[in-house]
């Protein structure tokens, strides 16, 4: 799926829990997520902390989108 977006000419960042799978499916910009049932959240945290966590991941994703890459790159 991520490849088709890229193929259409739109830069795309893949936020994904299992980054090796993201590599396999051909994403170029990859940001690791938290866990499979809650990639951009953590129910163990309180609401405010959780949103802060989510914001950090989205910031990483935006950072990836504004960074030139040469092939597959994981933004840890």
């Amino acid at each position, binding site marked *: 799926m991520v490849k088709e977006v890229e193929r*259409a000419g739109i830069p795309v960042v893949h936020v994904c829990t299992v980054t090796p799978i993201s590599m396999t499916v051909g994403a170029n910009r990859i940001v690791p997520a938290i866990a499979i049932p809650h990639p951009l959240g953590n129910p163990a945290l309180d609401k405010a902390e959780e949103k802060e966590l989510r914001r950090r991941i989205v910031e990483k994703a935006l950072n990836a989108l504004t960074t030139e890459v040469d092939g597959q790159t994981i933004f840890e």
Partner: protein
Amino acid sequence: MAKLKVVHYINQFFAQIGGEEKADYPVELRVGEVVGPGMALTANFKDDAEIIATIVCGDSYFNENLEKAKAEILGMVKEQAPDVFIAGPAFNAGRYGVACGTIAAAVQEELGIPSLTGMYVENPGADMFKNQVYMISTKNSAAGMRDAVSKMAPLAVKLGKGEAIGASAEEGYMPNGVRVNFFEKERGSQRAVKMLLKKLAGKPFVTEFPMPDFDRVDPNPAVKDLAHAKIALVTSGGIVPKGNPDHIESSSASHYGEYDIAGVMDLTEETYETAHGGYDPVYANEDSDRVLPVDVLRDMEKEGIIGELHHLFYTTTGNGTAVASSKAFAAEFSAKLKADGVDAVILTST
């Protein structure tokens, strides 16, 4: 037995009306006429089938008036009520190939009349329609006409008679994702030895079972001006409005969801949920922002960090590991995203 009735679709070029300068030629029905490649088809039908009408349409006309042309042609085909519909062959002509695929798929789907077409494997129409209608694999130019019709005619007869269709390798159509058994001339071990010899010699060989698509696409250039960029959200995590109005299936969904989030600031337990069956849904149902971060992006939109959050998001229920399944509809919504002027996409997976 009566001959099968065939309606044949060709473009202005093969109808010998003219080339590019005549590509705006409108749809025309010629009842009782056999035109151009129809002659060769007729010769190959022997006594099994006959062309009862030919539909001619310019390639530009078809592609620029898609819905109108489609409706006109469907009307004509319906009226002729053939047993089989044949479009092309289109060889390497791109717009003609897309037209052949579009109309053959439409006739089959909307009129229930078995249809087929033929074209070169690299014709853009091939990837778009080979899984929807039988598509004979042809050479890349009209010099391959004889070969093309020698495969299309017998397949058309089989389709018209409702006979069992053999494997792609036997019938000459492009592999369409449906595996069909057949008997080879040699046993498997001999085929394996021959394949190995070719592979060792660096010669081309054809695998009998292609693995899912592992191709790569080069990265697009980075977003230059985030503060004015339109960002869209896409997820394979199955986030849908509460109640799953489009009935997206829980796995390997046959369609994708497109939902408007204009004015939505936060995804709540009352308004959104996941349709995905591939993980424990409790956390996503409690707060779908955990999969699709609308709340955070709205904040950033307000703060001017990003230009805007696109008002539509797209959702599927693909597994992280299922590589091939969602390709077709991803291509479709990606085209929409492009058309809507989206600058970048955040795609979240579980």
